[in-house]
């Protein structure tokens, strides 16, 4: 019965989100859009970070190359559909090529190679004025006609988020997902039960880059522009923070983390300009007091509560 209640709550939430534009003002709708884009981006990272146990510090690259591929393609040729397919495809190519080198490393060396590769891509995008627009980026990216109003763009980011999140949820709970978790938790042991850990990790990276690529399309729909900043290491770091603040050992963690960070910074920005300061304090507090993230913290509280109740009965 509990499972059913969970599904009902989820369905109500989805219905509320779909009908939100009827009641909310356009600014709130934009903020919600941002949450869905960011949450999908965070989920894509968490597939390798939380489940695969890999310190991937360059997630923004996949979002970025996808967003740029779409933007550059539609600017030059005009076909939206091919652009939308091209984005994630290019992200997957980047993910595969980088992944082949990355899976040979582990721990901090893995992390540092992602930083080097990520910054390399950023530097090229940043400096290749003739092709990417350099530091200015592309200030205005054309979108298909059916995404002309803010409500349509909102619904698009929401639906992309829902479908992708559902797919990721299925993957995490699939046989492959189990082996990815196993490999992330104990690589040596996974090898000794015949798992080809390098291939499993590479597949994880490729899937992660694919969904990050989708979030890149979602990002363009939301912002209608691209700039090299979206590939910069700080953007990767911020999404990592969102995952960790929410909790990387739960599926909902990255979603909650993204939502909390965006909501708090949005609200804070109405009263002060020091958003990073607020974000820093949130992070500091969560590192010191909620090392398992918000969702992990709540789950543990509920778990302790149930355990305590059982003891009294």
């Amino acid at each position, binding site marked *: 019965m509990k499972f059913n209640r969970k599904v009902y709550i989820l369905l109500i939430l989805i219905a509320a989100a779909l009908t939100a534009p009827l009641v909310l003002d356009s600014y709130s709708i934009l903020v919600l859009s941002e949450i869905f884009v960011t949450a999908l981006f965070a989920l894509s990272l968490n597939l390798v970070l939380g489940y695969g146990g890999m310190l991937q510090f360059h997630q923004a690259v996949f979002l970025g190359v996808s967003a740029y591929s779409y933007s550059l393609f539609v600017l030059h040729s005009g076909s939206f559909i091919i652009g939308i397919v091209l984005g994630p495809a290019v992200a997957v190519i980047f993910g595969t090529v980088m992944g082949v080198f990355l899976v040979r490393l582990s721990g901090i*060396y893995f992390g540092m190679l992602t930083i080097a590769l990520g910054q390399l891509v950023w530097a090229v995008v940043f400096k290749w004025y003739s092709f990417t627009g350099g530091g200015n980026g592309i200030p205005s990216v054309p979108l298909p006609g059916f995404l002309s109003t803010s409500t349509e763009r909102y619904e698009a980011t929401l639906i992309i988020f829902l479908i992708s999140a559902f797919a990721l949820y299925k993957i995490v709970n699939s046989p492959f997902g189990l082996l990815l978790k196993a490999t992330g938790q104990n690589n040596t042991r996974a090898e000794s039960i015949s798992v080809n850990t390098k291939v499993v990790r590479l597949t994880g990276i490729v899937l992660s880059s694919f969904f990050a690529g989708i979030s890149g399309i979602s990002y363009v729909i939301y912002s209608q522009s691209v700039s090299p900043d979206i590939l910069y290491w700080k953007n990767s770091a911020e999404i990592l923070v969102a995952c960790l603040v929410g909790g990387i050992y739960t599926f909902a963690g990255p979603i909650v983390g993204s939502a909390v960070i965006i909501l708090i910074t949005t609200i804070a920005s109405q009263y002060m300009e020091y958003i990073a300061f607020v974000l*820093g304090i949130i992070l500091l507090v969560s*590192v010191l007091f909620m090392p398992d993230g918000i969702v992990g913290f709540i789950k543990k509280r509920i778990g302790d509560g149930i355990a305590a109740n059982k003891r009294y009965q």
Partner: protein
Amino acid sequence: MDLSIVASYLLIGISRGMFYFVLAAGLTLILGVLKIINFAHGSLYMLGAFFMYTFIGIAGQGTGAFFLSAVMAAITVGFISFIIEQMLLKHLYGKEHLMQMLLTYSLVLIFGDSVEMIWGTDYYTVAMPKLLSGSYHIFGTYISKFYLLFLISGLLTVVLLWLYMYKTKLGKIARAVATNRSMVEALGINADATFMYAFVIGGVLAGLGGAIASPAVNITSQMGDSIIIKVFLVVIVGGLGNIWGSLIAAIIFGISESFGVLIFPRFEIAFPFAIAAIVLILKPRGILSK
């Protein structure tokens, strides 16, 4: 290519490398001894530059005032490091690396905005002291005297760090802690104190780096962001915690950048990243590893 140009670019590259080393040395010391990846190192570098700006405002424009301010800025940043270590990091020793890293990243965010609260959002510059303005005529080309400051600070760091690590008991203990912490404690030595010294020395070096860079850069709250990544890669290319590896890697980075400007000016900023990626793929444990 004209040989004198090559020589002068080489000299510029080495000087830049020495500057990177000032920052990398602190970072690698912290990494080697505390096993913490300190994202806040870039923030401490930025703070060094801001304190430099303020102290020069007080001390005046002279060459002596410049060096005095640099020393003061480094000491102030060292003091801030002391507070960070005692109040925050101390509680995270032995915890997950990701958590420690994240704590230092939260400081990046906090310091970035704190600086804007205190100094505002303007760009600041520090005037070049007289002694360092102008150029030398070497190898038939002109090299800014300012590079001399980088070169000397780097050499000074090398010498002082060597003295500390190899000639003082504290430094020897720090090296011992880096390889085997529990045995150090079993000999009656408080390893936590060693951690504090290493972190503060790292902070002083970051502050010094900010101070000496201040005449050459725009002093802003973001100035640490790009350099910290480069310095990270220097440390990793040199081999985790290997100070001499960092020195070599820093010089390689410096030279690659200066020749990058010469050969492929548009993508000069990509050179260090490409080198780091290649080294990590071929020799993940650093250039000095077997």
